[in-house]
């Protein structure tokens, strides 16, 4: 009662509330209503509280579940990468703030590395920004360049953060799905999934500020070809649009494929921000370092966001990353360079996954890049009748598989907007950057599953 009276006291002065108190319950309701209005979320995050990873990570946290869901390596980072971080941890003066836009030795290494691909000088201070993971680069790019009322084209399926980040900037996402060509007896490949050029052009209009490109693509592993990138580049130039190119899996392309950087296409450098990731490059997702590369007139706005959000990234991790880069920059043609050895290692795992999935009737889409593989689960005809809710089929399938088969994955409709979820609801994503014992355990489960069926 005393507490209610205290709160009443504070309300009276600000809202000229009732003088007589009839019921303390009425007061408490009004108090909490008044409080809750002011403590409500801001408009910019309205509806953005849900997150697919929170839900599915919890599901797969059971240690008896073989986790092929979240894109997290359980393989060791290369020995020299770990060693560089250990060395750095022994140095006292790397524990204080470094340069906000990127630790000097790191931006120098990035500039040196990427100059080889861009065939131009890249100014380490003005054309590079180091961020908290590629996630942070996406955030800085969108906050720095996208305004309320802008439209941003997003290709479906998409890495799930693109949509909420665009909405948080007050902009409207405009979706266009990848569509599969008929396969006709050939092995289904990520390259069979393409954009229809006319449909793509129809999404561009004077309000279109940017298109977000992801190559190699998560979740399909599609590696966009020269012709496909040219279509996108032509439209960007025609409609004077920016391109935010998420290339975190840039080193992970398999035999017969080549990663192409859209920023190297004519007319594209000045309108493209290209994003990379230490986590994906060196299998150190927990270091949370990423970078944006682009022309000064774009990067400076990402830098402004940086100095008003986190200001600077962790020093010791940046120094260790710089040293790791120098080791591999010196041996880019060597098969032992991690940029060459990792895709080789992963291609073997990819092929193993393809066979495993096929053996149990899960129809895989062979990825040309990245470390995920998608399977079509419709032919399995799993009994999901006890999951009576309104979720898409693949959500229910993953939950059933996690619970009954102790194998986890991520539903592809989690990477779709509400309109296109149904188009992709028979597809499920598996991650294969896993050590052999994890894949062995997955194989056991799949073999037992397949025996059960026959």
């Amino acid at each position, binding site marked *: 009662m005393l507490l209610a009276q205290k709160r009443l006291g504070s309300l009276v002065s600000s809202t000229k509330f009732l003088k007589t108190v009839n019921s303390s319950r009425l007061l408490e309701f009004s108090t909490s209503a008044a409080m809750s209005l002011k403590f409500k979320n801001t408009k910019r995050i309205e509806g953005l509280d849900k997150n697919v990873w929170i839900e599915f990570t919890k599901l797969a946290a059971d240690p008896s579940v073989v986790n092929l869901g979240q894109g997290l390596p359980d393989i060791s980072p290369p020995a020299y990468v770990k060693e560089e971080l250990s060395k750095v941890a022994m140095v006292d003066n790397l*524990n204080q703030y470094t340069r906000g836009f990127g630790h000097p030795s790191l931006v120098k290494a990035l500039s040196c590395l990427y100059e080889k691909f861009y065939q131009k000088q890249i100014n380490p201070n003005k054309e590079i920004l180091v961020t908290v*993971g590629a996630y942070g680069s996406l955030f800085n790019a969108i*906050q*720095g360049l996208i305004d309320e009322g802008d439209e941003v084209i997003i290709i479906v399926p998409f890495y799930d953060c693109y949509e909420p980040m665009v909405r948080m900037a007050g902009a409207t996402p405009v979706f266009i799905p990848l569509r599969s060509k008929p396969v006709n007896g050939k092995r289904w490949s990520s390259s069979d999934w393409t954009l229809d050029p006319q449909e793509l052009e129809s999404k561009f209009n004077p309000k279109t500020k940017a298109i977000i490109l992801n190559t190699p693509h998560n979740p399909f592993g599609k590696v966009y070809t020269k012709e496909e990138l040219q279509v996108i580049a032509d439209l960007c130039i025609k409609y004077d649009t920016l391109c935010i190119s998420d290339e975190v899996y840039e080193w992970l392309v398999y035999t017969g494929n080549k990663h192409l950087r859209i920023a190297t296409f004519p007319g594209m450098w000045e309108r493209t921000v290209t994003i990379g990731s230490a986590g994906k490059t060196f299998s150190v997702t927990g270091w949370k370092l990423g970078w944006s590369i682009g022309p000064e007139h774009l990067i400076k706005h990402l830098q402004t966001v940086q100095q008003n959000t*986190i200001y600077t990234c962790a020093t010791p991790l940046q120094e260790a990353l710089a040293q790791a880069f120098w080791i591999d920059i010196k041996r880019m043609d060597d098969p032992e360079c991690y940029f060459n050895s990792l895709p080789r290692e992963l291609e073997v795992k990819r092929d193993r996954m393809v066979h495993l999935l096929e053996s149990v009737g899960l129809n895989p889409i062979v990825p040309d890049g990245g470390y995920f593989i998608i399977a079509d689960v419709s032919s399995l005809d799993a009994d999901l009748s006890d999951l009576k809710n309104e979720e898409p089929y693949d959500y229910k399938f993953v939950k059933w598989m996690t619970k009954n088969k102790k194998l986890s994955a991520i539903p592809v409709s989690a990477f779709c907007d509400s309109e296109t979820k149904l188009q992709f609801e028979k597809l499920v994503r598996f991650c294969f950057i896993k050590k052999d014992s994890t894949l062995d355990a997955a194989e056991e489960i799949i073999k037992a599953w397949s025996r059960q069926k026959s």
Partner: protein
Amino acid sequence: MFRNAAAISLHLVGLLQGKKAGASVTRHLHQTFTMAKQMQARRLKGLDYNPWVEYARLATEYDAVNLGQGFPDFAPPDFALEAFQHAVSGDLMLNQYTKAFGYPPLTKILASFFGKLLGHELDPLTNVLVTVGAYGALFTAFQALVDEGDEVIIIEPFFDCYEPMTLMAGGRPVFVSLKPSPTRDGELNSSSNWRLDPDELASKFTPHTKALVLNTPNNPLGKVFSQTELELVASLCQQHNVVCISDEVYQWLVFDGCQHISIASLPGMWERTLTIGSAGKTFSATGWKVGWVLGPDHLMKHLRTVHQNSIYHCPTQTQAAVAESFEKEQLCFGQPSSYFVQLPRAMQRSRDYMARSLQSVGLMPVLPQGSYFLITDISGFKSKMPDLPGAANEPYDRRFVKWMIKNKPVSSEGLRPLHPLLFCKG
């Protein structure tokens, strides 16, 4: 001097080359900037300037002893260095993503450590969020709670990011100044002497006031708000139903037997306060960039939404290092061997030494009760050297700092955005 001359001539040469190129330069510029659309998002309007970027660059250029930017030039304590070494050579999986809202052993120890201090049981999952430094915590709080048109009360002098963060969220900063009472001749000024006028503070609250930013111990003054002062702020926050964003990064750095009080521990404040802390300031490891927010779930859930849509995870190993450091400290908390006892003791000696040095050259320091900053009155200099080089409307303190960097081997930050007259009495 030679270095200065060299730097200036290079700059001029660059300009000359541009002018010679003439028409082709214009064409090149036109080709480069073909995008007709407005590039910079409107939320960044006016936010490109940052004083730290400018002064840090100057200090490096002139090879000055940098007493400006706030970071230690000594190492973190041994137990913290060891904690980081353990984190990077331990479990392989520490190289991979951890939980989005905080590495579990860290959120657990923060909940237990600060629960005791705030007098409120903390749940590691709902009352704790780990961020990229206290800077990241502040950003997350502003984005979660400050909407377009909301007013945010900021106490001057203030850590500079409060204003641009308010503006970036579309909010309107409302300033109220700490003001010094006059001191007697010969008496050293103290940060405790700088106070808010209660009526003036009360007048700043309007129906649009969403939040008040409190910083105690205060940067740059070093003021440690007293129980009475906090009660005043608390009662106004409750009366007007306002959120208090309490930046307490220097909470362990208090001197002369001063007591740091967290406003969240006052009656009626837990449910409306976000308490921000920093591993960088706590363990003299600013480069780890680990910070945290503690608060009630009904506010924290909005910060979690911002966090998962901005950076999502913080690095794992630095969090692991902070967790182990806190675990070590918890064992000797309150005892003479505690870092939280030893560091302020050492800093108090540095403070006193610095104050004496400043006084010896005729400057008038304001003795801070906390933090590791000290401000000084330069009005004595202004009367002797009123015309320092600088832009037409550049405040005297900024000109003084630049002059000092270039001519004396010590840099300091100008006191932004404190009104220069406060430092130019007489």
